């Protein structure tokens, strides 16, 4: 953290929340420490080398219009200078070796969570352009399936098992850890442990097509009790709404294009193509962290997703206004 403050202040730059600095996990802190170590080494090297070049070029015979005569060879002087150059090379090699050693040590520290026995396991499957999130459970009916919003308990190791349904994506929550590519045909284990509760945004970091720019996700770190409560709620299927407008909305949902792509457990809608909407109302944002989960945003998204994310897989749905309002009311009951 040495340096962010003064430099950012000097440049009047607001790092924003989605930054690799000021992390909330052990992994991010280790990486940030290593970054600053290498940065200051590089800074010193740069200053020294540029000072040398500036001093070397300071006596500058630019006044002469022609070219000066060629200097005679000075083998002895060159040999003496050779000792300086040789020393500089040796210092360079030692510095680089030091960087290598620190790199390997920090890499091991970042990966050290792999030895823990009882991690929270989460399967993340990348789709164009959203994240399918599954909390597997040996008991099949306790498996949680959701999308784009990942809840984790604070202070406990979490492992993400990656996969992709189509192209290469990359899972990157900068406040928490580096990134891991989601490769079709491969599955890898990505470990982290969050120390501070909060909402940490992440984004896809491997170009995956038209809406790569809008493929975000969030990691919500909460106390273990809140996490357990959230998990239990997510397991429940959607109940029948009591409000007549919501009931009408459910009817619209089941008789229009919605059921072709989405699942709402507890109803007839069971398609796995789009995100699971069973607990849509419990999420902070929709459309892969692009829009807030409010009536207006949801309405705009349903009616014309192509306006907001051109090329996305969801089609426009020109519903009648009453139907649209009813559907939104219904969706808001899906807590």
């Amino acid at each position, binding site marked *: 953290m040495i340096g962010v403050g003064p430099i950012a202040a000097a440049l009047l730059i607001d790092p924003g929340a989605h930054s690799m600095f000021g992390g909330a996990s052990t992994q991010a802190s280790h990486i940030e420490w290593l970054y600053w170590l290498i940065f200051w080494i590089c800074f010193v090297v740069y200053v020294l080398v540029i000072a040398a070049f500036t001093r070397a070029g300071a006596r500058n015979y630019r006044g002469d219009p022609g070219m000066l005569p060629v200097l005679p060879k000075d083998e002895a002087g060159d040999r003496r200078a050779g000792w300086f150059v040789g020393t500089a090379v040796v210092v360079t090699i030692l510095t680089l070796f030091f960087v290598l050693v620190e790199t390997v040590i920090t890499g091991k520290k970042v990966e050290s969570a792999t030895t823990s026995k009882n991690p929270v396991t989460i399967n993340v499957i990348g789709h164009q352009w959203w994240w399918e999130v599954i909390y597997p459970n040996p008991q099949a009916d306790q498996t949680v399936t959701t999308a784009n919003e990942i809840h984790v308990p604070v202070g406990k190791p979490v492992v993400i098992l990656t996969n992709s349904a*189509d192209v290469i994506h990359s899972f990157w929550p900068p406040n928490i850890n580096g990134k891991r590519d989601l490769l*079709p045909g491969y599955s890898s284990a990505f470990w982290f442990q969050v120390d501070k509760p909060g909402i940490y945004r992440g984004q896809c970091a491997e170009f995956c097509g038209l809406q790569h720019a809008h493929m975000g996700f969030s990691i919500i770190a909460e106390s273990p009790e809140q996490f357990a409560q959230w998990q239990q709620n997510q397991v429940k299927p959607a109940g029948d709404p009591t409000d007549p407008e919501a009931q009408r909305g459910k009817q619209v949902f089941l008789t229009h294009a919605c*059921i*072709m*792509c989405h699942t709402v457990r507890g109803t007839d809608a069971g398609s796995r193509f789009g995100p699971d909407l069973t607990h849509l109302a419990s999420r902070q944002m929709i459309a892969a962290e692009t829009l807030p989960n409010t009536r207006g945003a949801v309405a705009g998204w349903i009616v014309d997703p192509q306006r907001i994310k*051109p090329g996305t897989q969801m*089609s*426009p749905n020109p519903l009648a206004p009453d139907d649209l309002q009813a559907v939104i009311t219904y969706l808001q009951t899906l807590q």
Partner: protein
Amino acid sequence: MSRCYQFAVLATVALSLSACKRETREFRPVPPAQNVLNTVQVSGLNPGANPVVPPPAPSVYQESAYAVSQGQTLYNQYNCVGCHANGGGGIGPPLMDNNWIYGSEPANVFATIMQGRPNGMPSFRNRIPEYQAWEIVAYVRSLSGLLPKDVAPARSDTMNIKPAPESMPRQTPTGITGATEQSK
């Protein structure tokens, strides 16, 4: 040399104005103005001797590789594979042969999808948008080689159980619109 440059500029402009239809990507397609469903004929019988003339279909779906590729994705997602498999048929009739019961023209296939057909073909009207139905139409026609080779999809990134549509030889359609298609 200046004449060469003038020619090069003109050629470039001319080429770019006729931008390639194969590469069109429509994200918010405008639905066709004409109501195809009321004008398509699904029986080969009619009074008089007039041949069956299907209404024209929006060409962007037959000529855009992106649209056909979307059709391939939708074919799997909307579970057409459940009855038609990957074109070989099963519960439903095969789609990669040359026999088209209700016609092989795009408008006929569109009507089949939207209206449903006896003995098990569901109606998808109001369940899928019309432009997606047109995309599926284009893909289904590509299964028997009716689309140009550079527009039809190549092999998919899944287990390959059938040849890619772009390598399928053209199966001249028979059926109620066979007479008009055979002359193509």
